[in-house]
């Protein structure tokens, strides 16, 4: 039950973070210029109509009042309506979230599923062809912008070879390339992390002890080295998740996936404050929860972590 207590505590700790993050976002976004009511009503509206709408949206009141009102509404799951499109932020969000989460999870799955084994293998066979090969791939992926890799892969696999659909979400095939592109960078850092970590671990005294006990190299790697080398890598997964969600904005844009990323880009371009606000808050919460889960996994792997304290 220790971990349950810990999880609850961490969830509670998320509340002040969310409150302060929203406050900061509120201040930042209050700098957004322009007459919102005019934007909503169009050029033909009269001055009175504009003033009336401003009053209705509460935009004529001081910042702090508006903030409290926003939070009060948010508490009742009302995140406002879009300024430029005719939709409810939360509703739109719930339509789009599954796509973003699906692509992001597949990306992380790919990154860890491929990255960690390759990283560990190249540490075990240091200076082998595999090691040099994966180091080279890591180097390339770290210096390549994801949007470029995406565009180039789209050009090759979709437009030239016609193996995969170019964009949209028409079939399961639409969910092959986007996660690969989104996860590519994370995979590179997973390879690098697990390689470094494994190299550190196999030089540890306790590995030598295990060998002195009569374990073969393969046995010692399997029973002692891998578990220990995974500890820093698991922590890294949590950190990568924030980057992956941020990267999803780009990937969704390339492959025209109707997720949160495309919503956010359009909102930023049209300065649709409620949508930007809502999106950033939601993603911050998701990232916070994911990090909590990762910390729990870490505690499972590493007995030195004491959740009680």
């Amino acid at each position, binding site marked *: 039950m220790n971990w349950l207590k810990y999880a609850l505590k961490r969830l509670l700790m998320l509340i002040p*973070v969310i409150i*302060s*993050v929203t406050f*900061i*976002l509120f201040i*930042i*976004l*209050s*700098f*957004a*210029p322009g007459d919102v009511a005019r934007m909503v009503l169009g050029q033909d509206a009269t001055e009175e109509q504009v003033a009336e709408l401003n009053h209705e949206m509460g935009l004529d009141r001081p910042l702090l009042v508006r903030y409290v009102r926003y939070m009060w509404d948010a508490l009742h799951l009302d995140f406002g309506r879009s300024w430029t499109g005719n939709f409810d932020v939360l509703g739109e969000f719930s339509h789009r979230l599954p796509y973003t989460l699906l692509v992001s999870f597949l990306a992380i799955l790919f990154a860890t599923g491929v990255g960690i084994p390759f990283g560990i293998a190249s540490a075990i066979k*240091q200076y082998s062809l595999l090691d040099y090969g994966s180091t080279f791939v890591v*180097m*390339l992926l*770290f*210096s*390549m*912008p*994801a*949007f*470029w890799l995406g*565009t*180039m892969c789209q*050009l090759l696999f979709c*437009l030239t070879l016609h193996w995969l659909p170019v964009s949209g979400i028409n079939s399961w095939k639409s969910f092959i390339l986007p996660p690969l592109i989104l996860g590519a960078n994370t995979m590179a850092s997973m390879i690098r992390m697990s*390689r*470094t970590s494994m*190299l550190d671990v196999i030089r540890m005294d306790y590995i030598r002890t295990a060998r002195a006990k009569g374990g073969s190299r393969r046995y010692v790697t399997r029973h002692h080295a891998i578990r220990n080398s995974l500890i820093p890598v698991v922590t890294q997964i949590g950190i990568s998740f*924030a*980057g992956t*969600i*941020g*990267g999803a*904005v*780009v990937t969704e*844009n390339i492959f025209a996936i109707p997720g949160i990323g495309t919503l*956010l*880009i359009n*909102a*930023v*371009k049209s*300065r*649709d*404050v409620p949508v*930007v*606000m809502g*999106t*950033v808050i939601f*993603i*911050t919460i998701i*990232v*916070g929860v994911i990090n909590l889960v990762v910390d729990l996994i870490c505690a499972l792997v590493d007995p030195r972590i004491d959740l009680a304290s």
Partner: protein
Amino acid sequence: MARKKKTKKPLSEYSAGELILFRFRKNKLAMIGVGMFIFVTLMILIAPLIRPYSMVVKQDIVHRLNKPSAEHIFGTDELGRDLLARILYGGRISLFCSLAIIGIAFVTGAIIGGTAGFFGGKVDTILMRVVDMLMSVPSALLAMAIITALGNGVWKLVLALSIGQIARFARMVRSSVLTLRNREYIEAAKCFGSSSWRIIMKHILPNGIGPIIVSATLTLGSVILSISSMGYLGLGVASPTPEWGTIISENKVNIQYYPYLGIIPGICIMLTVMSVNFIGDGLRDAFDPKSKK
């Protein structure tokens, strides 16, 4: 060989700085990185000698979508603009903005983190709370929120992206100040009666700066990538101002039949980021030879 060895000083006679430089110089990849980076910077700086700025925006419909040739080494785009000129001047934005972002984040982060670490107590708690808060928002999203508020523009983009980096630097500086503050040799310096200022300049700075410089270099690579991604998404730098990401984005529709329009700017980004990463890795190994794998 034998004679060379005799003239060489024993390793113990080199100063720490000399040793770092020595190890850095021995690192082949790092030297390649330095070479590539100098080349890129030089090309960007002498751009006016290669292509006048007017060619960046000069449209020439007759010569639109020309494949690379002697006249247009990198070819021309949909509007007949010379791709080489656009890449050269675009590089100015990509590279100089990244350096500015790192500079701003580095200085601000060092001030915040240094203050928090050195004074501790309430100052530390308050500053670090703010930093933690900034860090809990994915930096790409934070930058987008700021751009929503400020609108497009090169300097607004710089501001938006540097705020996301400040928190990281602040944390790093703080933790290195904290660990160093409690080291024995700082205690020893205090016992000898050194002033706080002298301790900071003479002991904390030289010992703590290494990892921070390394991290700044490695972050530079990812910042270049962020700028071009923002450009690709149409945030920050807007067409017709060239920027490596915007160049790819504005040619998106033509890439299928004129792949050079996408490949060339992409390779430019890649080589620049790669050179920075090589330098960063080389610095890391030079500062901390134990970490070398």
